[in-house]
């Protein structure tokens, strides 16, 4: 079989094979995920996490199947799992399209390098699409490797389990592929037509916002949309607009239509899936075609120098000149570098989506709600991941070759640089999250409890900043990093552990303490003392530290083991 594959691959044109392997390396923006030239490592981690999720989904599906024996309950459970798995698949593909934003369209570098070479535009196009499809296929396959067998087997339609499996198995996989293709092609359509209709410099600016907006939309829909997976709630007139506008419900209905288990009254929802898929495929095909015929030329013709925004240029102060320089550099790097922005959004979007889904009930009610576990957990999570995410993004360099200027102008002691980095973390992570929590807190009562929580949140944010600064003797966005540092599995399980082992007990303790003045004073004093102690420690250690611009690999201890 491998020999056959090799023979088949060898029959493909050489230019296609070369371009495909190059584009495959660039489908996932490696800089974004801080893995340098380790595509196999990244894809392995990516596939590992998705496969674990698949096993987890299978387990939950199987337990649910055993738990619900009444046919109506089992049907509701089955529908709920089907919709959940389709929505999760769409979220994964949506995240993939965000991370691989612009990967399918040739950028200026591609055009400048490939245009003078005798390579046909269709070869470039096919190589780009094949590379994206390969990674997307891997995602679909691994996320559904286990659940894609278990779910059709357990929840197959009538008549009889065996026949049900043979009907529902292809229906399920077709639905997953169709839902993924719909999302991917929709994004391509939007990108392609925006690039075509707008002047390139405006498109480039807008593209960055579109990317973040798409990510926010995918997560917002995933976490916030209600579960309408039983015939009664689906028939509710108030739910009709959700069913009409949510693609995950369209494809959920499509699966049940193909499976023969969709009541006739909901057939219109499945029809929307077909229409949506058709529009997305046509849109993507025409935008790709037009792009390769027209936009590639436009890319070459674009002027090199784009005038900057005229008018008002405000330069706020963030302390002394060094603190201001580093804070402004951090803000500008985060705002203008696509890779860094996406990496930060990657951290924020999941946790903010989760936080808002926790607060959905409280925010929906007109009257203020009492301070709850959900409110405390969501604000803690937002603060934790904003600080941790920013600290991680600070470690990704923006331009290593330009760092010489920081080295030749390093005129102040190291502790001043650590203080400047602290200021940047506070300005960019703690203050925005705290202000967001302040906005959310308007929906909660009593005021005293809210005020205490906001004080605790501010101290917690500062404490997290001090923890992040331990050993961090770098200027944000300047230090090189070692290959293979981004460990997706570590991030995934880190999130689970933080959630279970830290945030929930802290929130429980705080909720129980809010009405007890002694406990409140204790919490505030404890956090204040911890912040103060770490602040002193970081300052003391920074005095003898050296600001570094390159990560040094850990010493590898090797022994020959010749002695006995």
């Amino acid at each position: 079989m491998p020999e056959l594959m090799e023979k088949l691959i060898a029959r493909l044109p050489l230019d296609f094979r070369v371009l495909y392997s190059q584009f495959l390396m660039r489908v996932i923006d490696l800089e974004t995920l801080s893995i340098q030239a380790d595509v196999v490592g990244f894809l392995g981690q990516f596939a590992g996490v998705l496969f674990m999720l698949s096993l987890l989904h299978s387990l939950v599906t199987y337990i649910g199947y055993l738990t619900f024996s009444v046919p109506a309950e089992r049907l509701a459970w089955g529908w709920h799992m089907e919709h959940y798995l389709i929505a999760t698949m769409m979220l994964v593909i949506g995240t993939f399209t965000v991370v691989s934003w612009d990967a399918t369209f040739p950028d200026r570098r591609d055009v400048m390098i490939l245009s003078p070479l005798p390579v046909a535009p269709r070869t470039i196009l096919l190589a780009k699409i094949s590379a994206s499809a390969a990674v997307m296929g891997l995602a679909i396959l691994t996320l559904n490797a286990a659940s894609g067998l278990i779910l059709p087997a357990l929840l197959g339609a009538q008549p009889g389990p065996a026949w049900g499996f043979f009907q529902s198995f292809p229906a399920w996989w077709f639905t997953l592929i169709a839902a993924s293709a719909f999302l991917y092609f929709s994004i391509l359509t939007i990108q392609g037509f925006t690039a075509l209709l707008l002047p390139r410099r405006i498109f480039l600016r807008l593209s960055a916002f579109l990317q973040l907006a798409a990510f926010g939309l995918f997560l917002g829909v995933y976490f916030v949309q209600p579960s309408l997976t039983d015939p009664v709630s689906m028939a509710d007139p108030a739910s009709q607009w959700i069913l009409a506008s949510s693609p995950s419900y369209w494809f959920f209905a499509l699966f049940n239509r193909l499976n023969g288990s969709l009541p006739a009254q909901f057939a219109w929802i499945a029809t929307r899936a077909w229409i949506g898929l058709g529009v997305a495929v046509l849109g993507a095909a025409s935008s790709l075609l037009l792009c390769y015929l027209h936009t590639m030329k436009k890319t070459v013709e674009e002027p090199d120098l784009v005038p900057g925004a005229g008018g008002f240029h405000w330069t706020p102060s963030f302390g002394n000149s060094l603190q201001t320089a580093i804070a402004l550099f951090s803000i500008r790097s985060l705002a203008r570098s696509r890779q860094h922005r996406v990496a930060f959004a990657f951290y924020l979007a999941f946790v903010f989506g989760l936080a808002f889904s926790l607060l959905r009930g409280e925010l929906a009610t007109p009257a203020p709600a009492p301070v709850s576990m959900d409110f405390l957990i969501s604000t803690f999570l937002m603060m934790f991941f904003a600080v941790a995410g920013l600290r991680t993004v600070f470690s990704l360099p923006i331009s290593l070759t330009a760092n010489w200027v920081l080295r030749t102008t390093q005129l102040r002691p190291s502790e001043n640089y650590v203080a400047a980095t602290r200021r940047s973390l506070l300005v960019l992570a703690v203050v925005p999250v705290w202000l967001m929590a302040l906005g959310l807190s308007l929906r909660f009562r009593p005021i005293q409890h809210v005020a205490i929580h906001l004080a605790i949140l501010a101290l917690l944010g500062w404490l997290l900043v001090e923890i992040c600064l331990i050993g961090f003797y770098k200027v944000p966005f300047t230090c090189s990093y070692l290959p293979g540092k981004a460990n997706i599995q570590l991030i995934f399980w880190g999130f689970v552990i933080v959630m279970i082992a830290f945030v929930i007990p802290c929130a429980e303790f705080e909720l129980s303490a809010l009405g007890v003045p002694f406990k409140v004073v204790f919490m505030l004093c404890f956090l204040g003392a911890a912040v103060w102690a770490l602040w002193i420690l970081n300052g003391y250690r920074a005095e003898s530290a050296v600001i570094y611009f390159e990560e040094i690999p850990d010493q590898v201890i090797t022994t020959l083991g010749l002695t006995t």
Partner: protein
Amino acid sequence: MLELHNVSKRFSGIPAVDDVSFCARPGEVTGYLGPNGSGKSTTMKMITGLIEKSAGHIFFEGKPIEGNLIAYKRRMGYVPEEPYLYTHLSGTEYLTMVAQLRDLPAKQSSERIDGMLRLFSLHGDRHASISGYSKGMRQKVLLIAALMHNPQLILLDEPFSGLDVASSLVLRSLIQELARRGKVVLFSSHELDTVERICNRVVILHHGKLVADDSIERLRSLMELPTLEQIFSQLAVEQDTDSMARQIANLIHA
């Protein structure tokens, strides 16, 4: 005065700069010449403190530069060989950041940046992203960043790279004017005509070793050659250039 005494730099044991000694005096422009890979930029980086030397000593105004590196860096301006900049910033943002890192007073630095951007014809594009700047424009940003704090020691590594004719003429005069005002100027270039016009003395490096260190006039008379180009060819060019050109042409026709 900038003095290098027996300075060497080895990368994995291979010498890039080997036992180099010379002086660059205030009021003079010292040309630092050598073929590609001869160790010029490595020397410059050692003088700036960007890389550590393997052996030898570097003194500025009689003191070793490592003694008080911060005070030394305050008095040094450096234009690197390649115009590497943070291209996501605009010209003004980059220069303001450098001024802040150098702790220059805000008002003074703002006036200097604005004035120099006008003189270097960059004022109209000062808010545009550096990513769109041409090589010459980037070079001008580097020059402004290197000079705006009025340094005593000016290190210029290929400063004419990418500049148009008018800007090159301005820079040529500027280097001489700065030297007349008592600055120490060490200037590395491949443009031998320019070096011959503006430098008081030249230091020539070949395979990391010093092969000449004298005034241009004296080198001319010692070697009995009329131009710096011929002196340089004799000291630092090994190949027969015409023969090499023929070989390349033959190879691509083969």
